[in-house]
Each structure stands twice: as C-alpha cells, then as structure tokens.
C-alpha cells in the first residue's frame, strides 16, 4: 500500500542525496510539520502547553543531543543534567546582562557556551571509554551543579540562590515570563527543535556523522583506517553539548521560568534523557523524538488514569510509575535493544513488501 518505491527512481544527484529519499516519508514529514506549525498553535491551551507539548519539545532536544553523543558516537554520558544547567545559566546571564539581545541569539549562544564546556569535559574520553567515561561524566554533573550553587556570580547574587527569567519578547510577542501566550512559547521551542532536528539528521548522514559511527563501532579499527579519534570524539561532545545546552536554555527560560540547580538539573534528569534514547532507539533521530514522547507522555497518561480515573493518591501512582519505567527499560533491552525506532523500521520493511511476505 504505502512505500511503493517503483517509479521513485532517481535521475539526479540532488534527488539521490535528499534527506528523505522515499516520497511517502517526505509527505508524512510535511504533513506533520504543517500540522505542528499551522494547526496546533490555534488549538493549544495552557494545560497542553505546560504539561505535554513544551516538555516534549525540550526533552526531544536534549534526547537529540545525547543521541548524537551516545547513540552515534558511542560515548555514554551521565552529565546531561549538568550540561543543561550550563545552558540554563548561560541563558540567564545573557538575558540579564544584555537585555537588548534577541532571544533566538540568546538561546544559540547558550548552546555555544555549553558546547565549549562539553569539549572540556569530553577531553577524558580520548583516554577512557565505556563505564569509565560514564563515571567521568558524573564528575561533570556533580561539579557543575555544585558550581552553580556556590558561585554567587552565576545567580546574580540573589538571596534565594534561584535564577528567574526576565520577560523577553520576540517580534513584540512575549515568549518568556508568566505573561507569554501558550502558542508563542510553543512555536518558539518548535522552531528550534525542527531546525536542529534537520541539522542533526544531515550531520549524521555526512562525513562527520560517519566518523562518529566508525568510532562507535570500533574505535581502534576506525583510527587505523584514518578516522581521527580526537576530532571525532570532541566534535561529538561539542555538537551534543550544543543541543543539550539549547535544551537547558529552553527548559529554563520558556518552560520553568525559575530554577534552582540541584532540583531542576539533578542526576535524575541525566537518567531521564538516557532512558529516552534507550527506549526510542540509540543512533536514530526519529528515535529521540519517540523516546521523548514516550517518557513525557507515559507519566501524564498514568497519572490521568490512576489519579483521575481510579482516584488513587498521587504518591502511590508515582511509585507505580517508577516501577513501570524501570520494568519497561528492562523489557526494551531484552526484547528490542534498538528501541522503538527499530520497531518502526521493521514495520516499514513489512509495508514495503506488502502484500508479499518476502
């Protein structure tokens, strides 16, 4: 039915290299984008914005970043929360220090600052790998959170130690602060996510992405055939931290509004993003989105069913969600270590061949 490739022949280099080579994919992505940009902003309300769409977009961004590092380059990182904190504090210092700066630029610069920090903490990856690297990134996580707690310059010497975003607008419409309309914050995040998902998709198909994957599959062999590990690993750290920094900046400025490092950027956030990419699929851009959707929607869904439906107390439901998430992680690793994205790939193969089994 779908995915008929006959008649989808390529007659130019441009057609051969396009991001989505199959027509059905192109149409599907187009429809989703049109829906996201032209329909959702008109129907969005405060509940959907605050508890579903914004978290989804922010975590999708973070998952994209971590997937570049862990899924494509094979370097396990538990420092995501710390890097998000860098993005958030960079955004805070930029918005308060330069009130005239455009918000898009603020977010991008925060990503740039985080990329720099990421390179510094990525340096050990040249000598250590696997679990050892995971522990090394824990150093980044705890050190960065401690730093933002202890150095008053980062939170502008405020008495509470919290950072609060000032109200800023883009094209005359507020996107941060309590007065920002739902559709504006949503579109602001959506623009970043869509643009950077496209960039990630193309990066991973290109020379850089291939060098990452070579390092992931076997670093010594990659080095021997001429992939420079220094460049490949540090660029993966830089790009990944850039994405995570943007996610952190959006998380703080648009979604939270006010933050305190231990609470908002703790080690649990690092694990959350790691779970997203495991469930979604390591080494898959689409998987990052599916994983983020899964991990943000599942708790909301269960809360709605059990608290609203059965009338159970929230703390009990919280424990059950913990169990479910843990159980699902194990289930996925056993049944489908490549995540939900792999299920989709299999389904796609089947659709291509349908109605013939082989």
């Amino acid at each position, binding site marked *: 039915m779908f995915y008929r490739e006959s008649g989808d022949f390529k007659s130019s280099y441009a057609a051969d290299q396009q991001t989505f080579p199959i027509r059905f994919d192109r149409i599907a992505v187009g429809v989703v984008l049109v829906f996201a940009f032209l329909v959702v902003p008109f129907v969005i309300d405060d509940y959907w914005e605050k508890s579903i769409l914004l978290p989804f977009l922010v975590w999708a961004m973070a998952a994209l970043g971590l997937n570049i590092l862990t899924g494509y380059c094979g370097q*396990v990182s538990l420092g995501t929360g710390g890097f998000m904190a860098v993005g958030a504090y960079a955004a805070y210092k930029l918005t308060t220090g330069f009130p005239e700066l455009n918000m898009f630029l603020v977010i991008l610069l925060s990503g740039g600052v985080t990329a720099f920090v990421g390179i510094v903490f990525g340096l*050990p990856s040249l*000598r*250590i790998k*696997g*679990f*050892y690297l*995971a*522990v*090394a990134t*824990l*150093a980044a*996580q*705890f*050190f960065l*959170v*401690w730093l933002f*707690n*202890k*150095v008053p310059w980062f939170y502008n010497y405020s008495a509470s130690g919290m950072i609060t975003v000032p109200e800023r607008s883009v094209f005359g419409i507020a996107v941060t602060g309590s007065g920002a309309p739902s559709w504006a914050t949503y579109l602001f995040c959506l623009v970043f996510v869509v643009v950077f998902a496209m960039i990630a998709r193309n990066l991973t198909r290109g020379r850089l992405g291939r060098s990452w994957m070579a390092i992931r599959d*076997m670093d*010594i*062999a990659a080095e*021997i055939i001429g992939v420079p590990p220094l460049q490949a690993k540090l660029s993966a750290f830089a790009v990944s931290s850039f994405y995570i920094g943007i996610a952190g900046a959006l998380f703080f400025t648009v979604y939270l509004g006010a933050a305190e490092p231990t609470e908002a950027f703790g*080690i649990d956030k690092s*694990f959350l993003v*790691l*779970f997203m990419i*495991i469930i979604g699929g390591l080494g898959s851009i689409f998987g990052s989105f599916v994983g983020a959707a899964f991990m943000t929607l599942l708790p909301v869904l269960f809360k709605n069913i059990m608290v609203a439906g059965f009338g*159970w*107390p929230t*703390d*009990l439901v919280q*424990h*059950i*969600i*913990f*169990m*479910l*998430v*843990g*159980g*699902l*992680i*194990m289930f996925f*690793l*056993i049944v489908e*270590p490549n995540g939900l994205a792999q299920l989709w790939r299999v389904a796609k193969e089947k659709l291509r061949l349908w109605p013939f089994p082989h």
Partner: protein
Amino acid sequence: MSPEILNTVEVVLNGLMAGVMYSLVALGFVLIFKASGIFNYAQGVMALFAALTLVGFQTGQVPFAHLINVIFGTDYHNWSNGINTVLAIILTMLVMILFAWLVERLVLRHLVNQAPIILFMATIGLAFFMEGLGDLMWGANIKVLDVGLPSGGSFWLEDVTRGWASEGANYYGMYIDVLDVWAAGIAIVLVIALMMFSQYTKTGRALRAVADDHQAALTVGISLRTIWIVVWSIAGFVALVAGIMWGAKSGIQFSLSLIALKALPVLILGGFTSIPGAIIGGLIIGVGEKLFEFTIGPMIGGATENWFAYVLALLFLMYRPQGLFGERIIERV
C-alpha cells in the same frame, strides 16, 4: 601536640570510617562484576531495599499496605508488633535470595552475550524498578533502623585525646561515632568471611572459576546460572549489611540509593575486579574527600564532598585507566 594536628588526625580518622562505608557498597559491585561481567548499578538500591525490608519485618508492617488499602478500602498497617531482629535479618536475607533468583530468571538469562553497556543500562532499569517497589511495599516515609548497635560519640576517646593537646590549648577531644567503629569492624569481618568463602568452599572455587573464564568454567561442568544466583545473593547479603550500617547512621530514605553513585569512583580507583581494591579505594576516597573539605573546602565555599570523589577518579583515570589493582586492559581489533 597542637590542636591543628589533632584536628587533622580526627578528620583522617573520620574519613577512614566514611571510606569503610563506601567500601561496603563497592564490595557488592566487585562481586557481581567479577562473576558475571555486569556492572550492577542497582547495588545501592538493593541496599535501600534490604534495609526497608528489614525495618518492615522488624516493625511487622503489612507489605503493599498502602496499595491494598487504596484498592479495597481497608485499613491494614501492621500484622503484629514486630519480630525479633535476628529473625527479621534472616527473613530479609531470604527475600534477597528470592530477589536474586528472580533477577536471574527474568532479566539476566535473556541478556546473555549482550554488550556490557546494555547490561549496565538494564541494571539502571532494575534500580528504578526496585526503588518503586520498595516504596510501594513499605511506604516512602523516612524510617529509623535500630538493630541494637551503639551509636553517638565516644566519651572515652574524647577524654583520652584531650590529654594529648599541649597545655592551655583550647581543645575538646576527638569526636568519633561509635557506630562507625562498629561498621569498620563488621566490614573487616565481612571481607575475611568472603575471602574464606571464595578460597575454601566448593561454591567459592566455582565462583572464582567463573570469574576467571566463563567458557572454561562451563566446560568443566559449573552451572553459570546457579553461580549467578549465588553471586547476586551474596551481593544481596553485602547490600543488607551496607543497608543496616547506612540506615542506622542516617535513617532509611531515598538518598541511601545515591551511595551507589559514590561507590563508582571508589571502584575506578580500586579497579573493578579486585576486592582489596574496593576496600583501599573506599578508604582513599573517604580520607581524600574529608581532608579536601577540611583544608580547601572553606576557601571555595564548602560542600565539596558532592563532587570531589568523581573529580579525583577522573584525574586518576588519566594515568591508570585500570585502577590500582585492576587487570590490565588490553584491546585488540
């Protein structure tokens, strides 16, 4: 002696005691890693779970009371006024063995031959699951664990050390928690017992054989599955001891599971495959972070204990990636 030196000695001693606690957790990691090559992130949560279960039995709580009450509208909390501590410890150990069996049966068996990092992530999932299960079974409130170990400062030591200070110095003696001393003693006994077990019993020999070479062990007729259950049970036992010690020290609460994270740098320092390494690594980290906090901490704002261990491990890794006592890492294409 001047009070400064005595203060430093006190800090070092307290660091050693804290290090023993880290070693206790790291020990469980090493056992499982040696026997199955699995880096068990859930070790900290196992300690939490064991401690929760122990208190549950001790005070005679009904498991899943909260859930049952909500579903059936009943009001059960306790089925008795509690049972003897020794009996409760034995029962908890049985629960941990059952847990080991279930983990092998439901998770590990299906993940044989997967990459180590996949197994690691599976244990993170396991940790989440057990965290939820522990709270669901016994409730999430902070509990007090009392197994009859003495605690509090030692007056005897304070009196003795006060005499060491030079005449007229403003010094009030050293403060060392008696509980920490007990913990150190128990840890020593535990390590000796584990060594004896692995050297002189048949199962212990089988364990070492599996640690040495999985396939060779299989060919001489050692059942990997049984060994895994045994190892996870022993790790459960170590977790129980660690849980009792930590629980008696600071109450049983969620943060107990975070000691698992502290055990990671300990392992990196000591090497993943060495039991003495786990002990010495723990002591180094314990003394190191206390001394750092004591000397440099005040200059840079304090609370350095949160990150010092990780940064130390990070720097150490640069020079010796296999740890102090670990086996040399050889890579082949």
